[in-house]
């Protein structure tokens, strides 16, 4: 069955450094992948979508890569700030044309 894995341990990064989060998947080849941010007590907020034919996508300080050979997406935040502290979720499409499966998320903590 389709499976997504994100590092369940919190990631602690010093302010100003680059934070890198990983999303691994198995048993299928998604056409794209989405990343969301979730703050405590709030719903997830969409950040970026990257398609299988895009190796890299950028939005301000965010960069996402998508390696279909390794079955992995990396999510980078450059010049990280304490306000970037949140849980980051990746989501991939299922065989249906409307359902997503979700990783459990990685909690990112940026220390001043």
């Amino acid at each position, binding site marked *: 069955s389709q499976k997504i894995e994100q590092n369940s341990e919190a990631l602690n990064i010093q302010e100003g450094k680059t934070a890198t989060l990983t999303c691994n998947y198995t048993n299928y080849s998604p056409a794209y992948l989405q990343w969301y941010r979730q703050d405590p007590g709030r719903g997830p907020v*969409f950040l970026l979508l990257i398609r299988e034919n895009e190796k890299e996508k950028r939005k301000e300080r965010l960069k996402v890569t998508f390696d279909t050979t390794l079955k992995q997406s990396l999510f980078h935040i450059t010049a990280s700030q304490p306000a970037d502290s949140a849980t980051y979720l990746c989501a991939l499409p299922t065989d249906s*044309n409307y359902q997503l499966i979700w990783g459990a998320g990685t909690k990112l903590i940026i220390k001043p």
Partner: protein
Amino acid sequence: GAGVSQSPSNKVTEKGKDVELRCDPISGHTALYWYRQSLGQGLEFLIYFQGNSAPDKSGLPSDRFSAERTGGSVSTLTIQRTQQEDSAVYLCASSLVKGNNSPLHFGNGTRLTVT
């Protein structure tokens, strides 16, 4: 503009009682999803509404769970005879168009606690 609105934000109920959770999606969004989020778990799909089509109820965990979407807008998720394992955050999301490459817009959820 207004985002997805969910109410109540918190609900504490006794085991065996029924609860109703409400979702008001973004105006004009035809697709509406309900998810359940438990601590340390990925979002669990419950049900999907798209326009006037029959909903996909394949994610509902038992027949105690049901949902309606009236007039293609507001949706209610009903849990009958609540059990302690129903305790979780229930999230509603809407998207502008059908298709799982369309970003989802989430409400802030209803935190349900069954005592």
